[in-house]
């Protein structure tokens, strides 16, 4: 098997059957990164020396029979998750040289199972954006067409998995940042129910919305990664025990009798014709497999973006107040007093989009505007959650496109922030309501670019989502991005 085609399941089986050693597997991926990343630019940093050490340790575990399915499997993580001793930049200037003194719980949970960390992946600065163009460090390319964006903000994670640079990756999702890049790059992206995965060590953007999740080649792989990272953590008091010990159990049971709601709003609002057609095809496929697809309505869909950008910017302005040039991060050289130190460090250290979000967030929280914007948005959050709760009394899951379009050209959306925000129309409500959702590939558009569809479930309904996604995937197996010529 070619390295780029390795799923977790296939690699674990090859390791167990001694067809390949953990070291050979890791070295194979290191070579692939070296050969392809000058074109893809998915990685901000690599840690190949420690990866080789980790692979050797993993082999020992495999040899004495104490490994599990993730032991010896190469992975990479979005560069907003702290990794002890390895820079964690958030693709920003202000944290460009930040070396965390601790690791995030999600990364630790994977490494404790013997997964091998290859490096850290590019993102929009502080995960704010939908194209990874807001990275201070570099612009990641979509492996399907390197003139196009990989989506964002977990663009590096999606591009690295799609191009076979790693077996799987972790991303984070505040308003669609796992699902939309997964859709643009033709891979599987899962945003778990809020609280399922500890946020300890995930650099905070909007704490009531942020959630870590897997980006993988297959649906089953997504379940394997979720098994490892879903755990209550005493370091994150919002983390919960989901009560699900194995997300892959029953994954192949099929969708016979499953009730899938199709909100009319998700197939009208400016959806590209090719995207709509592919999602309609998928709906027909589900009908053929025995599911009942029923048209329904999400009346509040149209208000979700406005509510989301108020809530997320408000939380961001508060979370990012910590970057002041004192304890860690960039400090300006130009100051005569403490206030100038703060202001100049922040102004020189943050990029344009991050400043815009901080300004919006500060505005909506400021005296005189709080009720009109922030409180109003939280009330609408209530209504959106209630509307979803109502739908899940009738349906097992909800289906629609992940994004209104396929990947667009680098630079096409860079000048209009509001237009960029509107691209999040189908993903943000999920975070507002704390629900799980998965994006899986459902074909290619006329330009040969992947289309993604999104399945949304009720809180802690991941197993239903995975089952539904798995059933569809059997009819449309994963396809790796065409080889990028270097």
């Amino acid at each position: 098997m070619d390295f780029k085609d390795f799923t977790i399941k296939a690699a674990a089986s090859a390791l167990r059957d001694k067809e390949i050693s953990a070291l050979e597997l890791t070295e194979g991926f290191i070579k692939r990164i070296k050969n392809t990343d000058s074109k893809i630019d998915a990685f901000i940093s690599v840690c190949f020396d420690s990866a080789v050490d980790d692979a050797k340790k993993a082999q020992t575990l495999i040899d004495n029979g104490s490994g599990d399915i993730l032991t010896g499997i190469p992975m990479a993580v979005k560069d907003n998750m702290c990794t002890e001793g390895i820079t964690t930049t958030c693709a920003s200037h202000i944290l460009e040289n930040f070396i965390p003194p601790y690791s995030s719980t999600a990364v630790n949970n994977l490494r404790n199972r013997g997964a091998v960390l290859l490096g850290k992946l590019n993102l929009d600065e502080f995960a704010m954006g939908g194209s990874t163009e807001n990275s201070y460090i570099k612009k990641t390319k979509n492996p399907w067409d390197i003139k196009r964006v990989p989506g964002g903000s977990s663009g590096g994670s999606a591009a690295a998995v799609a191009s076979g640079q790693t077996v799987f990756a972790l991303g984070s999702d505040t308003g669609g940042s796992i699902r939309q890049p997964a859709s643009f790059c033709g891979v599987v992206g899962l945003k778990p129910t809020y609280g399922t995965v500890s946020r300890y060590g995930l650099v905070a953007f909007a704490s009531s919305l942020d959630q870590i999740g897997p980006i993988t080649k297959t649906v089953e792989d997504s379940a394997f990664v979720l098994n490892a990272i879903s755990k209550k953590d005493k370091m994150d008091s919002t983390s919960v025990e989901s009560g699900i010990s194995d997300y892959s159990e029953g994954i192949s049971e099929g969708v016979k009798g499953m009730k899938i709601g199709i909100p009319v709003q998700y197939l009208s609002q400016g959806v590209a014709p090719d995207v709509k057609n592919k999602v309609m095809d998928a709906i027909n496929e589900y009908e053929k497999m025995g599911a009942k697809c029923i048209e329904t309505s999400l009346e509040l869909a149209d208000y979700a973006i406005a509510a989301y950008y108020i809530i997320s910017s408000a939380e961001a302005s508060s979370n990012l107040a910590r970057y002041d040039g004192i304890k860690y991060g960039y400090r300006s050289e130009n100051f005569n007093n403490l206030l100038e130190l703060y202001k100049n460090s922040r102004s020189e250290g943050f990029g344009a989009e991050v400043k815009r979000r901080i300004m919006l967030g500060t505005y909506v929280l400021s005296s005189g505007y709080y009720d009109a914007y922030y409180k109003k948005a939280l009330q609408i959050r209530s209504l959106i959650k209630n509307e979803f709760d109502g739908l899940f009394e009738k349906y097992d899951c909800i289906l629609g496109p992940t994004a209104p379009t396929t990947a667009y050209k680098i630079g096409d959306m860079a000048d209009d922030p509001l237009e960029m925000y509107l691209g999040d129309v189908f993903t943000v409500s999920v975070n507002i309501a704390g629900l799980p959702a998965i994006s899986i590939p459902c074909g290619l558009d006329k330009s040969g670019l992947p289309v993604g569809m999104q399945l949304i479930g009720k809180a802690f309904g991941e197993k239903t989502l995975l089952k539904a996604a798995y059933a569809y995937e059997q009819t449309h197996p994963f396809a790796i991005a065409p080889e990028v010529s270097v």
Partner: protein
Amino acid sequence: MKISIETVEYVAGLARLNLSVEEKEMMASQMGDILGYMEKLNSLDTTGVKPLEHVEHMSNVFREDVVIDSFDRDKILANAPDKVDGAFRVPKIVD
């Protein structure tokens, strides 16, 4: 919606940001567009709706009051832009 340069300057001050003249103009125009878009929320009647800060039903989370190991001081100071004698160094704040 119109956002004035004065408003931008006021908010930038609260957010501890310096903006150049060009940045201020750009920010005024873009914030105007975005906040204008957000006004669509006003078309929904939310009288009596309880604001939802968080999707989880949260109560206080307590732990036993026991002393545990914290980070090593040198490790924490390793990222400091300026430090002296085991402390962060900042400009003089009291005359």
